[in-house]
């Protein structure tokens, strides 16, 4: 695909996204829905909080897929990230862990998920495992062992209320109307997610490591010829994706304050939504983060509808993000995936 058609495709996609949002807003106005009660500052802040875990996992998954490995196990790594953070905070701080315990828990979860994904990457890259089946397996293992750990520690699939991250307010900047409370009086993990997305964009498109990564997915033979070990690049990308998905799970826990392991656990499909977020963001870390904000907003519509006095069953409102995922895949399903995705690369020597 030529560069120009790539650019026009991106523009078309962006235009489509904006048109969709505008159409929804117009429909709401036409139906006399009290928009001002829905689009509040609190809503924006909550949406960014909800978007952070999805954005982190999406950036990770994007790196793996750019390198040529479809990491379908994001959801599983997120479950491990959430339960590990909860478990470490509990072990360190008992029934009422403090902020330091929480932060150690977050770091611990990232380390643990990095180790898990080293195993996962070895099985995929070294032993050429089936990427789709092995990725599903990571999810199932998380669905089993996540609640297992919870029952061991708390005698229940759900943890008691433990600790959530303390909001940080930056003086002066937080005084700015609208933007202040949304961006400068919020969870520091929202900033972390934003920082990761920007850094990921810079590395991917402006450094030689980023070019290696892209080449590993688009044209592994050329990269091999240039003397770079394709398997190593992919290995690193998969480990990175697992670590970031784990961080996403940790952030999810840190915002919620307790671990919930009933049903599909508290992660509840966010890892799958992350995959759709980077597809929708056209394999661009910033685009993926933007799509994550869209899904984060849908997750929080419920509270807004309630305050605006619109009666709609909660159980059905919870399904909005999933319906949106299907709509996105149907309308923008035609994403351009890196050409060597899913293909184990076997070097000549």
């Amino acid at each position, binding site marked *: 695909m030529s560069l120009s058609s790539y650019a026009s495709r991106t523009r078309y996609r962006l235009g489509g996204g904006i048109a969709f949002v505008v159409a929804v807003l117009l429909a709401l106005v036409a139906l006399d829905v009290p928009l001002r009660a829905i689009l509040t500052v609190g809503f924006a802040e909550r949406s960014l909080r909800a978007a952070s875990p999805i954005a982190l996992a999406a950036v990770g998954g994007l790196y793996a897929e750019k390198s040529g490995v479809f990491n379908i196990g994001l959801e599983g790594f997120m479950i491990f990230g959430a339960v590990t953070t909860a478990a470490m905070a509990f072990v360190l701080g008992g029934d009422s862990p403090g902020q330091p315990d929480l932060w150690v828990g977050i770091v611990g979860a990232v380390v643990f998920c990095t180790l898990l994904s080293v195993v996962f990457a070895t099985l995929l890259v070294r*032993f050429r*495992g089936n990427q789709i089946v092995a990725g599903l397996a990571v999810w199932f*293992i998380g*669905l*089993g*062992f996540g609640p297992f750990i919870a029952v061991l520690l708390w005698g229940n699939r759900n943890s008691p209320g433990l600790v959530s991250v303390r909001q940080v307010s930056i003086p002066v900047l937080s005084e700015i109307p609208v933007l202040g409370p949304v961006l400068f009086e919020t969870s520091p993990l929202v900033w972390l997610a934003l920082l990761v997305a920007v850094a990921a964009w810079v590395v991917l498109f402006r450094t030689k490591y980023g070019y290696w990564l892209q080449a590993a997915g688009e044209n592994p033979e050329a990269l091999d010829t240039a003397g770079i070990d394709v398997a190593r690049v992919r290995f690193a990308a998969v480990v990175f994706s697992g670590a970031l998905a784990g961080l996403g799970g940790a952030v999810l826990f840190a915002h919620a304050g307790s671990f919930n392991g009933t*049903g599909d656990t508290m992660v509840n499909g966010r890892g799958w939504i992350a995959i*759709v977020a980077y597809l929708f963001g056209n394999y661009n870390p910033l685009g993926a983060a933007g799509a994550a904000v869209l899904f984060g907003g849908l997750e929080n519509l419920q509270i807004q509808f309630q305050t605006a006095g619109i009666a709609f069953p909660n159980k059905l409102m919870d399904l909005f993000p999933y319906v949106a995922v299907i709509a996105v*895949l*149907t309308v923008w399903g035609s994403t351009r995936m890196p050409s060597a995705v899913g293909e184990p690369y076997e070097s000549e020597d």
Partner: protein
Amino acid sequence: MSDADSGRVRDRLDALAERALDMTVVERFALAVASTALALFIGLLVVAASGYDPVAFLGYIFEGSFGDSNATARTLKFGTLAILTGVAVAIAFRAGVFNIGVQGQFVVGGFVTVVTILWLAPLLPESAVGGVALMLLGTGAGVLAGGAYAAFPGVLKAYAGANEIITTIMLNFIAVGAVGYLVEGPFRGEGNRAPNTARLPEYVSLPQVVFDSPDFSLVGFGVALVVVVGVAVVMARTRFGYDMVTSGYQLSAAAYSGVDAKRTVVSTMTFSGMVAGVAGAVFAIMVQGYYSDPGGIATYGFDAIAVSLLAANNPLGVVPAGLLFGGLDSAGTHIGINSDVPVQLIDGIIGLVVLFVAIPELFRMAARRTGLGGESR
């Protein structure tokens, strides 16, 4: 995906399928046994690491699966569901379509079965014959509903390029949420405290043969075996089955022989969802006798993926694999009652089985290293 892109992805999947087909029957059997054994072994290590007695745990597994007639009935009950959902998965996987949505199709099929029976019951005589008629009609409705719920992602994949792995997973969440809403509100039985539908009438139940169990009937197990044989015949002996299997083996070859790839995707998904609908109907009629919030119903549709993979996606192989998983689930129930080890461990072990089945190379290498099996390819 554009056509060129999806073609490329197809080629990759074809390559994977080809590698799998390179394996001999003996190799596949060895892979299934080795995967299960290794997963169980890791499970026992976790049990020991958590401070429990792994030997006692292993004892519970055997006792809980075939220890007495109660345990055997329970194993056959879970086995029936694992076999039916496993066949549903096998149909799709065999054709190269990743239907991860069997759980959702199972839920929708079961719910529609119950609603249909409750709706028709006043119109038919309250007798054994009426009961059989209601079960047949209800199951028919459940099969149609399951098929339709699977056809939808099939159409999205074939005509809009929407990745079926993700759409079917989303449809699982939607099925559980939507049916959960329906049993809680509009379809809740009168005077029910719990979010359940009304109970099916007494005479709508399968007869007790050999085993005397409130939630298992040998007739249900027989239905599963009949479905297995039916699916095996369709796959091996009909044009439709041939098209499906060739599409799964190599899409380009199928296209040359005149197979309409898009229609095959839709019909494969529909067929797979219909079998999931049978599983849902059997669960609703034989096990529950009403429908509850599906958030609390076990994820048979996920275990089914492991069952199908263990059986190398062969409908006949699903029977032993399904019984194995029926045994594991049954042992899980036993462990939940008799020991402190969290039963969620069984789900984790099932996940490990799926992981190991995906990596035949690991066992090949191990076999070469240890000099077992010896043959190199």
